[in-house]
């Protein structure tokens, strides 16, 4: 069948924009304030007459929330009335640089310091004394120290603020 215009549903035309808007309502299971779109986890979207293919980029290879996110994407897109396929892909390596400005603000609002930009090609180490200072998400102080590169989940590190004396988490730059 030839379709001259984008197909429509109750949500409006089925185009990449409508799909991205729907995916923007899928929250990260571990940080519900941020959506998977804001985290930059969506790669290509392919809209075909009878199905939608979404490329999902894992933040970390062993992220245990990945299956949950994949299922949430399928559920959220089911209302477009087509088969939904979610491909987990490493073809584009996810990096903390993919987090959107809105996503970074929401992370800060939830008590997570957004990651400093990565510097590809600079080699080891990525986190440490030589890095740009990370601001405390509570008081904004730059007098913070890295306590542990590793945190409660694979994507997070633990820092401490010398001014408000608050420990906080930051995204591990990858």
């Amino acid at each position, binding site marked *: *069948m*030839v*379709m*001259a*215009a*984008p*197909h429509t549903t109750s949500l409006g035309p*089925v*185009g*990449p924009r409508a799909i991205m808007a729907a995916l923007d309502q899928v929250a990260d299971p571990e940080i519900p304030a941020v959506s998977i779109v804001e985290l930059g986890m969506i*790669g*290509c*979207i*392919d*809209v*075909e*007459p009878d199905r939608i*293919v*979404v*490329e999902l980029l*894992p933040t*970390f*290879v*062993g*992220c*245990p929330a990945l299956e949950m996110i994949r299922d949430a994407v399928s559920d959220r897109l089911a209302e477009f009335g087509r088969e939904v396929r979610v*491909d987990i*892909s*490493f*073809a584009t*390596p*996810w*990096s903390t640089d993919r987090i959107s400005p809105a996503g970074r603000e929401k992370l800060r609002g939830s008590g997570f310091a957004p990651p400093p930009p990565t510097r590809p090609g600079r*080699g*080891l*180490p*990525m*986190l*440490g004394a030589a890095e740009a200072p990370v601001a405390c998400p509570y008081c904004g102080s730059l007098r913070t120290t890295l*306590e*542990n*590169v*590793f*945190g*409660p*989940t*694979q994507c997070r590190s*633990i820092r401490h603020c010398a001014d408000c004396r608050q420990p906080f988490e930051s995204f*591990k730059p*990858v």
Partner: protein
Amino acid sequence: MSGTGPSTVAIANLNPEADAVRALAPGTREALAELLLTMADDEFVSGFTDSEWTGIAPLLEEDVAISSISQDELGHARALYQLLAGVLADGRDQDALAYDREPHEYRHARLLDHPRGDWADTIARRFLYELADEARLTSIGGAYRPLADLVEKLRREERYHRMHLLAWIDRLARGGEEPRRRLEEALVALGPDASTVFTPLAGERVLIDAGILTRTLGEAEAAWRADLSTVLVPLGLPMPPHASDTEDARRGHSDSFRWLWGEFTAVRRSEDGATW
């Protein structure tokens, strides 16, 4: 105008991995399966061994760190077993590959066959392995795209492991009489098995000709030794000797591995088809 015209915006290659597998010559496929199995088993066994520290690591912060590193390694193993499942195409998925084999069918290096030991043993073993893993990952070429893509991602995570282990080696080496003595003893005990990560593969030449490996594992070992010496020599710590016996270095595992196998297969064996 085709049916997909106006609404097709970005093309996701629908099954790039299946295409890549189909493009492999049979001999290359077999050699690639061997490489993937050794990489996956190394990550899996080292991840499981060190997950035993969860709850009992010497410091609370370290409990978090070693648990996170172990979780990374198990995740890396899962991704590598998934690639292996695609290459083997024999109906086994990543869970079957991880859990449904007998102990003698695992192909991890003898270095990783050592028991968890004390903290110095763990730091020494993991340090030797993390640097060896890096030398191996940098030997992977771009010819088999699914693996090259995964390796690019793995290296972004593994560098944090190396950074952490380098800090611990330094800390133990300069930490006074007992920490230093224990670290030296661990390096001496593990040394003869350290280079078993680079045990030559039967299909190594095939993989190099196909562009899946860019150098032999012997060449990777030389790079690893150079890397190790920049850390160990300034601290006055012993370098691992050249392995004299690599014949069965990925076979014939220890009693401690057989115990670990009993642990990590317990759930799977108690319920047929249990998944990750």
